[in-house]
């Protein structure tokens, strides 16, 4: 799948999922550099156990994530995708997280229209200091995805 790598992270979803064992589910998380990634970093520094299914990709702003990034990740083997950005009104680029919110809503409707569970795509917002919320959303997403059947891939 020819999807351009995200500018700052220089990785694609298929690359971060390459180490997933057979049969293991994977969830790709697109994290905003300003907020959610800092929260994830703090969780890592504190050695908080996170679900092994989560694969993170740092983006400069959640407004960078397009429907194609989310769908290509699902098509390339992810069982779920989520976008985590700044709190509403606190985007460092003013409206990036609002754009992401609507794009994720669009992808959910698109998934629904082809018979795929819309819960596979989600959007969360959190502040840079809110490590507990990052951990809770990661675990919540892992629980949601583990309840769903595997995606058909042709």
């Amino acid at each position, binding site marked *: *799948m*020819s*999807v351009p790598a995200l500018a700052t992270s220089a990785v694609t979803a298929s690359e971060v999922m390459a180490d997933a064992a057979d049969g293991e589910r994977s969830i790709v998380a697109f994290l905003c550099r300003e907020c959610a990634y800092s929260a994830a970093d703090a969780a890592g520094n504190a050695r908080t156990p996170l679900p092994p299914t989560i694969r993170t990709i740092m983006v400069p702003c959640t407004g960078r994530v397009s*429907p*194609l990034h989310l*769908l*290509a990740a*699902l*098509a390339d083997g992810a069982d779920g995708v989520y976008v985590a950005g700044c709190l509403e009104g606190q985007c460092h680029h003013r*409206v990036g997280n*609002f*754009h992401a*919110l*609507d*794009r994720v*809503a*669009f992808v959910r*409707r*698109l*998934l*629904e*229209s*082809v*018979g*795929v569970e819309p819960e596979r795509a989600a959007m969360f917002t959190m502040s840079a200091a809110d490590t507990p919320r990052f951990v809770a959303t990661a675990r919540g997403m892992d629980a949601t995805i583990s309840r769903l059947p595997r*995606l*058909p*891939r*042709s």
Partner: protein
Amino acid sequence: MPLSARGRQVAGELRGGTSGVSAGVLGCEVVRHDELCVGCGRCVSACPTGAMRQDDWFDPAQLFAAPAGTGRGVLAAALRRIARHEPTGPFRVPDRVRTFRGILFNADLCAGCGACVRACPTGAVEACPVPVGDAEGVPRATASAGARP
């Protein structure tokens, strides 16, 4: 049907054009090819009479019809890999998603100026010459000079 200021200007400058009159008076018939459309909305901004409008709904079938290799084609290929069935009906698009929208074309408002054809980056809007003479039995004439943008 009221014309916009730009519409009146265009209609006044062109031979045969009358201010306030629309419906093909300026020479070409506009045909849209939805499968080539990328939803950029340039035809909407270019249209002087408001005949092109961005819809609040999007039909995923339009994605699946897009040619492979284009942006929408790549998106459709990804979606097709995980799809459980053929896409069902149009759905409402969230406000801030600007490109994944259908374009509504109202032929009654179209003045036939061809501004949308020149604005379209993918050739999804085509201008065809309109038949000359009355409707019955007269073969379609080729475009006279200036009729085609």
